[in-house]
């Protein structure tokens, strides 16, 4: 029904009233001549009906034939509206300009959505796209999009595949992460390597999977000493090359020094928070609040939101910037508090050290000293760790099996 009403409104219709002794005669006569009626209401004296604008003249003739008088009560529809405003040329110009503007704006991209996989930052990709000239507000060209896809996949080694899909004024960037090239190089089957010591210590355990061990348990080693050789001499006098692999554990000694200044800086918020909001329509920003950036030190947080209607993004965006101002205070600390801080820091270091699961702390001895400007904690650690460090060898003129 709304569609029918709209079509009637576009073609224009009249509300007429028919007076006479037998208005039914008019209805029958007119309907037989192809005149269509709707909204037919009957009073005691007259009949009110709606007919198409183009049927009005025919209806007038038929009303005379049926000995009725016909009068147009009201005129509805687009043709009458155009007639009413035909002298106002500004409206026509405005309508044409808005149509042109609408067409022009439809050629631009107003929303870019990036579906980045884990490990690739969406913000970085957006920056790279902007550097290549693909930003919100540009006029969309298919060949330009293909160029950008190619350039971005060449420039950014993390990306193995990229596709920019444009639907209307929305662009969706689909990405696929690439395989790290360095890791690939390391897995070269023809590589020859030794394992060298990364620290001084005494060997406690040896586990060699590939290569020939060059040290024994209980032997003391220094940093850089060969632990596992990648070159093996065969009984027939020839050599065989390996990409050495294995673990050599040694008890090592290390000293960790941690310091805390006597006067430390503390941060406290003074409760002054402010917000700034901008609305961006078609890439043009309008401020909503006129509050400025606070004086002094502050932390700011930006929150960007897109607007959408029925699941479709529209080129209206809001950007809210929150400011939290803070003050820096300097406080002098005593040795007890310093000891607490230093122990906390050492616990963090311990966690970091044992995070790979291959380093075990066997013994530790800590001492705290007070210096001129700081408190210093020295920790002497005895650890057991894998001291192997891979060292690749380049051998020219020898072919591998």
């Amino acid at each position, binding site marked *: 029904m709304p569609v029918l009403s709209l079509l009637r409104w576009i073609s224009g219709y009249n509300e007429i009233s028919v007076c006479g002794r037998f208005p039914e005669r008019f*209805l029958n006569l007119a*309907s*037989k001549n192809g*005149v*269509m009626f709707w909204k037919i209401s*009957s009073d005691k004296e007259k009949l009110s009906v709606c007919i198409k604008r183009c049927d009005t003249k025919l209806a007038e003739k038929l009303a005379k034939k049926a000995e009725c008088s016909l009068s147009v009560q009201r005129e509805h529809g687009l043709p009458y509206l155009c007639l009413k405003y035909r002298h106002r040329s500004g409206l026509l110009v405005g309508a044409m300009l808005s149509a042109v503007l609408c067409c022009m704006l439809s050629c631009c991209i107003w929303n870019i959505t990036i579906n980045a996989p884990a490990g690739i930052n969406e913000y970085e990709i957006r920056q790279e796209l902007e550097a290549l000239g693909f930003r919100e507000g540009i006029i969309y060209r298919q060949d330009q999009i293909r160029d950008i896809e190619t350039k971005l996949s060449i420039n950014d080694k993390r990306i193995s595949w990229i596709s920019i899909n444009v639907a209307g004024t929305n662009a969706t960037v689909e990405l696929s992460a690439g395989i790290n090239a360095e890791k690939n190089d390391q897995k070269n089957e023809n590589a020859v390597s030794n394992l060298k010591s990364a620290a001084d210590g005494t060997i406690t355990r040896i586990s060699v999977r590939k290569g020939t061990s060059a040290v024994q348990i209980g032997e003391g080693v220094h940093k850089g000493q060969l632990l596992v050789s990648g070159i093996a001499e065969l009984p027939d006098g020839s050599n065989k090359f390996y990409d050495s692999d294995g673990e050599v554990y040694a008890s090592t000694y290390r000293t960790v020094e941690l310091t805390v200044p006597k006067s430390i800086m503390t941060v406290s918020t003074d409760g002054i928070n402010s917000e700034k909001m901008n609305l961006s329509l078609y890439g043009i920003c309008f401020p909503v609040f006129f509050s400025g950036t606070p004086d002094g030190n502050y932390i700011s947080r930006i929150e960007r939101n897109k607007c959408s209607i029925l699941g479709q993004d529209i080129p209206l965006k809001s950007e809210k910037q929150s400011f939290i101002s803070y003050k820096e205070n300097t406080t002098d600390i005593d040795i007890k508090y310093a000891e607490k801080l230093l122990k906390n820091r050492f616990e963090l270091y311990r966690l970091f050290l044992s995070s790979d699961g291959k380093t075990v702390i066997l013994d530790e001895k800590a001492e705290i000293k007070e210096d001129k400007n700081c408190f210093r904690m020295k920790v002497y650690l005895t650890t057991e760790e894998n001291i192997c460090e891979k060292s690749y060898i380049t051998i020219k003129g020898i072919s591998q099996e």
Partner: protein
Amino acid sequence: MKPFEKKLADTRQNLSGKIRSFHMTVSDNREVLIEGSRGVIEYNENSVKINTGKYIVAFAGRGLKLSCMNDYSLTISGFITSIEFIM
């Protein structure tokens, strides 16, 4: 009326007379769709009489209204209390 138009109208009338058969679709007592009508004999808000050719169908009720009408069909809406076939 031009001769061609007259001929076309006559042919249409003859054809519709042959094809036209009376159908009535009643939705509750609120709306009736009539197809194959030959014209309105009486129309006011309490009574509507429709000529079908073979007989007259009389609708009685309150606030009766012809929602839309053309040469072949019409719709009556309102509170219908009775339908009578007058032979």
